[in-house]
């Protein structure tokens, strides 16, 4: 099992009812992790509409998920 710290923002934060959590997972990739968490929290946004960040940098959905990573799921942007 890996330990990761996951951050949620905007609509995901509201649906998860928290801004972050520590998660134990066997997911091999951020995509797999999101599938698990989406089931757990009832996220309505599909992964195709999100970006993922690993350790405060934009990351790849299908790259290996490192142990002890900081992961953030990034809903569609609305800055500016």
């Amino acid at each position, binding site marked *: 099992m890996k330990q990761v710290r996951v*951050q949620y*923002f*905007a*609509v995901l*934060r509201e649906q998860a009812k928290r801004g972050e959590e520590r998660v134990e997972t066997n997911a091999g990739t951020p995509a797999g992790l999101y599938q698990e968490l989406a089931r757990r929290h009832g996220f309505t946004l599909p992964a195709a*509409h999100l*970006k993922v*960040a690993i350790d*405060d*940098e*934009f990351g790849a959905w299908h790259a290996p998920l490192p142990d002890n990573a900081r992961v*953030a799921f*990034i*809903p*569609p*942007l*609305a*800055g*500016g």
Partner: protein
Amino acid sequence: MSTKKAKAAQPTPQFRLAGAPLDPERLRSELLDARAGGFVAFEGRVRRRNDGREVRSLEYEAYAELAEKEGARILAEARARHPIVAAAAVHRVGHLQVGDIAVWVGVTAEHRDAAFAACRYIIDELKARVPIWKKEHYAKGVPVWVSNRVSARRSPRAPGRKS
């Protein structure tokens, strides 16, 4: 280090988030420089109507660590693409009212072409890339997390996102 020497160095482009109302006069004065023949600023403001609905207020939320990194990268790109003297950008987080400034971008350059072009580049890229989210509160109905439309002006290499 004397003020004169500090001014002679190329200032590092600055991007930051701000929890309090922006002061555009102060932001401009911090950027102005004797080398600058041109200064261009953009203010993105909260407007009353969005998609036909009356906006009462809105909230901005940011992933601060990544927003600051990506904002700094965008400003560095603007410097690499255009012969500017300095650039700075500030984005609000927190609660804003109609008429408040949500984002400020300022650019100084020796000549106006670079200042206009760099300012446009910076705001376009900020909107497309910086992890910031907006929740609109309306006169009627529930609040909504909105997302940006993809601008047709952006370069094809950059990933787009549908609103």
